């Protein structure tokens, strides 16, 4: 099972099965091999439902639910099994096109059956198909009409493990705060915490990290579940470690009152067998790069940071602090502080999706480009870069600018997209646009880009 980002899809809260103790603990109900029969019956039903639609599967699920001791378990297993299956629409016709045809036939609703059949027959003739294909296609894009093509390729044990994983993630979705302990490799966890826009306090002892307390910016002001979804997304990363422990404060609705109560949730490596095994997505540098991951926590004002790695530049160690754009002010303060102490550190930013790159800082999209990182560090710590590299840089920059210019010319006059193209490269839009023959004016919050010669004309 691939690790992915973790927790993108979790159970809805009403499928959460927990036991609450009088002491204020909350424990998930895990499925073990004892539940394999139930998981097997879900898999069997899915296998027997090939060529049936989701409505049919839903009815079958309800029958199994009534027979089982806990309907939530059945619904949860079905939910995972459905996600692992492949479905197709009931007709090959484009549903939207069919609807458009139907509704544009007459402004008045069709009140008798012969008139209704006539509409379907006309459209079928135009689309060179039969009436049932048109009728099926009318809402053929609706989820309940989708037809099962491929059932889930899994076994009962793995299905149960995935269920357990989603149970824990669903509980953690209600976290107010979370403590992580006993992990050996903190880098990935810290990177994930930062990339999710969360904050953490690190507790150290004897130069080692003892624990990390995770919370969100607002957490200091109120007990908010707002960050729970993000905290849940860290769990997959933690539970694949040999040693781990998670303790979280979980805010849950009380059954008999309108209020919510905070419970303590704890899980550790003694439960690892209940979870699926993950394959880590690797992004490690090639051995030719002078990179080391054996970094130790560094004390800074009001806390501790753990550099992601260090780069050796001619015997000099440059620490790399992997961070997210939201922490830029704090990162710069830390860099300046360490500089005064004689420690070199570079902040490196990762951005995702449509996020804009950070200007003036080393920044990558989605993952680190190690070659570029080493190159940037070389450039920032003089005396190490070579004449050849400068030429190479110039050539690269010139090529890049040409590529950007071509893209901009192609995108013109869509100012917003043009600005996006430049900023995604981590460059300053007004400067680059001016240099490439455009003028920039501001309209409210947006830049308006025009070609220079157009204005002059």
């Amino acid at each position, binding site marked *: 099972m691939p690790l992915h980002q973790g927790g993108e899809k979790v159970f809805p809260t009403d499928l959460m099965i927990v036991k609450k103790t009088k002491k204020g603990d909350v424990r998930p109900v895990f499925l073990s091999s004892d539940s394999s029969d139930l998981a097997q019956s879900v898999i069997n039903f899915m296998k027997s439902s090939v060529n049936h639609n989701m409505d049919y599967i839903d009815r079958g699920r309800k029958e199994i*639910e*009534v027979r089982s001791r806990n309907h939530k378990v059945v619904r949860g297993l079905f939910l995972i099994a459905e996600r692992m299956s492949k479905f197709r629409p009931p007709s090959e016709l484009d549903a939207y096109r069919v609807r458009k045809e139907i*509704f544009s036939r007459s402004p008045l609703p*069709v009140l008798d059956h012969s008139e*209704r059949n006539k509409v379907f027959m006309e459209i079928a003739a135009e689309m060179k198909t039969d009436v049932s294909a048109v009728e099926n296609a009318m809402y053929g894009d609706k989820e309940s009409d989708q037809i099962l093509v491929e059932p889930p390729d899994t076994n009962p044990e793995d299905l149960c493990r995935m269920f357990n994983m989603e149970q824990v993630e669903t509980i953690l979705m209600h976290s107010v705060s979370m403590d992580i302990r006993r992990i050996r490799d903190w880098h990935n966890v810290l990177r994930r915490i930062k990339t999710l826009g969360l904050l953490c306090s690190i507790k150290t002892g004897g130069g080692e990290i003892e624990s990390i307390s995770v919370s969100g*910016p607002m957490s200091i002001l109120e007990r908010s579940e707002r960050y729970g979804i993000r905290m849940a997304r860290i769990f997959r990363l933690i539970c694949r470690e040999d040693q781990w422990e998670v303790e979280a404060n979980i805010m849950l609705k009380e059954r008999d009152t309108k209020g919510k109560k905070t419970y303590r949730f704890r899980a550790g490596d003694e439960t690892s067998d209940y979870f699926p095994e993950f394959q880590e997505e690797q992004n490690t540098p090639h051995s030719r790069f002078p990179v080391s991951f054996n970094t130790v926590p560094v004390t800074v004002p009001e806390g501790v940071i753990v550099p992601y790695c260090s780069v050796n530049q001619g015997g000099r160690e440059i620490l790399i602090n992997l961070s997210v754009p939201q922490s830029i002010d*704090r990162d710069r303060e830390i860099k300046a502080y360490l500089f005064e102490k004689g420690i070199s550190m570079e902040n490196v930013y990762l951005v995702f999706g449509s996020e804009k790159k950070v200007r003036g800082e080393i920044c990558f999209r989605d993952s680190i480009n190690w070659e570029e990182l080493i190159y940037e560090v070389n450039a920032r710590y003089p005396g190490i870069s070579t004449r050849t590299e400068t030429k190479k840089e110039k050539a690269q920059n010139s090529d890049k600018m040409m590529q950007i210019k071509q893209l901009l010319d192609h995108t013109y006059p869509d100012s917003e997209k043009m600005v996006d193209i430049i900023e995604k490269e981590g460059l300053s839009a007004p400067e680059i646009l001016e240099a490439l023959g455009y003028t920039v004016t501001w309209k*409210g919050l947006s830049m308006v880009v025009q070609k220079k010669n157009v204005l002059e004309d």
Partner: protein
Amino acid sequence: MTMTMDFDHGTVILRNVKQPSDYMVFDPRINAYRAPAYMYGRISIQYPDADDRVFEKCPEMKLTHSETLRSYQKKAISKWKENGFSGTIVLPTAAGKTHIGMEAIRQLGTSVLVVAPTIELIQQWRTKLEKVFGIEVGQIGGGEKTFLPVSVSTYDSAFLMAETMGNKFRLVIFDEVHHLASDQYINIAKMFASPYRLGLTATYERTDLLHEKLEEYMGGKIFEMGYEELEDYLADFSIVRIPVELTDEEEEEYRTNREIFLRYIRRERIRLKGPWDFEKFIMRSWNPEGREALLAWRRSREIAFSARVKIDTVRYVLSRHRGEKAIIFTEDTDTAYLISREFLIPALTYLTPGPERKEYLQMFREGKVTALATSRVLDEGVDVPDATIGIVLSGSGSARQYRQRLGRILRPGSGKKAVLYEIVTKSTSEYATSSRRRKGVPNRSDDS
């Protein structure tokens, strides 16, 4: 050193604070003070010399419109102004709340975000703002993410993006502001720094009393008028209840399922007096018997709500008002699709993609289709001025939902006479549901 104020993930970070206020909390994780973003207005007044970097720079906008405000609309705006450009205005559906919003935007001439619950509503606001002010309007939600000084957003998108969007708009208008009071959406109000706030709704009070929260974040209710006071401005209307009977087969299935449900709640001594009691029943239905009772309750409701004879009654009503614009309201999406397939009219549900919803509403406005089937997405705010017929095929017992649905056909028009039909299955629990929801609207009903 000068005190600085920055926006950070729905909070304001304050550095170099000499005299911190009680609403500021020192955050050791960043070595600075933090305050919730909604306190920004107060902070900027209290610390006028601080280097304020909370909002992005936005030039003053000079917006004008040629709309004429009615006397009560002018009064509402002046109350809002007196309250420091914050507060909620409560007016019945079709009383012109959008006009009040546009006047508020004109008067402040600053960046503004209009937040509304559905894609239809934000598209409607966007079209009106573009038309009235002659400007381009941004949209966040419904598959778009364009930030402009005047923008619209769904509650969902505003909630998801509050951490990054909370310092982009100085004025925020919450249409159907009662939604804002929910546990989740109230975070939008907390995490936006906007010092100017306007709430608009026809139904301020919530049965769960959560509207009390709005006082702190929105400035409270500052103006209210009811249907009775605004009769001159609304279309004439009547409400007709059409009772229908189940077929013998349906009736037997209904009774069987109802009996399973009642037997369980009697045995468990569950008393169902309101929505909260029902939630408790659902939470207690984790055992096989409870589950069976819940499924039986659902099935009996389905039978009552979507009795076959109701489809024929809709056919009758549509034939009687042939050519008039009608909206058919259902409680669930399946029934909306059933109506759509039966009468070959568009269905608008939460599953309908944004552009398609917009297209159907446009077709309806232009008269290219004269009937729409919808579950709940058209309950609120959508403006279809010449719709005269509403058909409630099924619905909840909520008076608020009923008022909103009625409001869809009350937009004034010359000589307009609107009729709201309610098709209710006799001898089922739906009758009591219908009676519950009728409380809270003017009594103009006939049982046919």
